[in-house]
């Protein structure tokens, strides 16, 4: 056959498909205005408002930037791994994207890897922006190997835990319901979930918050950035949430 449409089938190598998929989802996440507000504007507002208020009214004892930055990074990670992912996936189901991809050479595992890659890319950009702003406000974190390892592991496990929960929501609810619920849960956790303000600040309730993915994400980052070590208990909590969420999602997710 010599025509322009003569069959010549074949799938591109898996690693190339995954890389391209991750970059595509990253572009789409960054292109979406509402999600950008959630991902960057809200964390930056919390950071600046928190530091300014603390200095003005003496609300936070000690170095305000140092106390607030780990929580703001946790907030940024949660906004992407949970809320943005849930909303985007809900509308992917609505628009038949996930269904169509099911007929493409990209397998489900490749789709999940690509999505995770996109989340980590967006989070890296968020952390760079938030950390840059915090440094400008006078934040001086510890910067040893323990910090790097602790931040990397906490962000990775936190992303997996929140992504599993976000997909659980997006895979069972309608797109509009997912949009509403993902934002609501984000706000509730941001206020009362020990994300921005450390779980210990909540008094006795703090012990419960440490067992939530939001509180654990904060603890892991605060330990890494404040003490320069890996917060293993927090990582264990995130791992359990990732496992539970992943299991439930695998059982309930409807692709269309």
């Amino acid at each position, binding site marked *: *056959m010599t*025509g*322009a*449409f*003569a*069959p*010549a*089938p*074949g*799938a*591109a190598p898996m690693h*190339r*498909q995954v890389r*391209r*998929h991750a970059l*595509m989802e990253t572009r*789409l996440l960054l*292109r*979406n205005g509402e999600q950008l507000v959630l991902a960057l504007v809200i964390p930056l507002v919390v950071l600046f408002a928190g530091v300014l208020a603390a200095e003005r009214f003496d609300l936070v004892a000690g170095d305000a930037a140092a106390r607030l930055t780990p929580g703001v990074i946790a907030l940024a990670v949660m906004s992407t791994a949970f809320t943005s992912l849930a909303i985007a996936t809900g*509308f*992917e189901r609505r*628009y*038949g*994207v996930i*269904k*169509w991809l*099911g*007929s*493409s*050479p*990209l*397998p489900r595992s490749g789709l999940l890897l690509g999505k995770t890659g996109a989340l980590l890319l967006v989070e890296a950009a968020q952390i760079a922006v938030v950390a840059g702003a915090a440094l400008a406000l006078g934040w001086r974190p510890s910067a040893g190997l323990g910090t790097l390892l602790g931040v990397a592991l906490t962000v990775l496990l936190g992303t997996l835990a929140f992504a599993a929960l976000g997909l659980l929501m997006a895979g069972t609810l309608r797109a509009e319901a997912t949009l509403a619920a993902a934002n609501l849960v984000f706000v509730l956790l941001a206020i009362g979930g020990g994300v921005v303000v450390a779980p210990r600040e909540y008094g006795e309730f703090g012990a419960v918050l440490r067992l939530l993915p939001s509180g654990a994400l904060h603890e892991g980052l605060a330990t890494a950035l404040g003490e320069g070590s890996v917060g293993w208990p927090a990582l264990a909590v995130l791992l359990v949430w990732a496992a539970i969420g992943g299991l439930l999602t695998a059982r309930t997710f409807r692709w269309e």
Partner: protein
Amino acid sequence: MDATSPRDPLSPPALAVTGLVMRYGEKVAVDGLSLSVRQGVIAAVLGPNGAGKTTTLETCEGYRRPQAGVVRVLGLDPVAERRRLLPRIGVMLQGGGAWSGVRATEMLRHVAGMYTHPLDVGLLVERLGLDSCGRTPYRRLSGGQQQRLGLAMALVGRPELVFVDEPTAGLDPQARRTVWDLLEELRADGVTIVLTTHFMDEAERLADEVFVVDHGRVVAAGSPAALTTAHPAEADQGSLAFRARPGLEIGLLQSALPDVFRVVEDPPGEYAVHGPVGPDTLARVTTWCAQHEVLPQGLHVGRRTLEDVFLELTGRELR
């Protein structure tokens, strides 16, 4: 090219479905459906809404596991051998398939990147008339543009077999012809096409093989020519059809014609004279119309269309 030509009747079929049964709860969607499509042809699956067309196609595409029966696509089991099959087929779903914020050409380039020897994206965009909206986000494309992008996504990986679910639904006449020409060119280049459609003229023009599906079964199969000439005896004799105001006294028209003719009004306002229609019949009918001050519109003499066959097989009532 292989030693066996794709159109060789002895080469294995591109698609073979045998005794497929699919149920949703109590409802039987597909009820022992069998069909076989040769390589390199266009096959059209016709049927009323809810006849089981989409369920059948989605089972062939590996989305659903057959509850009974056997499905083989390019000789492969679409569920068990999914990963080997998917790179070789193209799928156009009924609506959707792209991210709401993705631009048309961007989506097509993304899909092209999943394959080893994709078509030239620029060529495909131009052939489907998508060049003017290449930078438009998917959600702002018109229904017809979304439809054509969906077709392009099915074709860009240079598949051997494409499944297209209602390829021209919602398209204007020019775009329909563009899509028809493209599908014909694909066939000429050796691609097998399985499509569903509601448009009889589309099936009549494009399809080498037609499968009429109703209540989850194939109720008639064959080439459009075979279907329109072979079925009931009166088909060989031809017919005369016209439209006029409903409620004409067809008994009077009947008595103006020889006994072998049969006059029917179905649905109201659409008249047909069945029998050995000749020039004399035409003269008698028009004379009768003139006497009754009836202007027959869309007067048509000839063999049945695929639509006539379809309605005879599946009934006229709405579902």
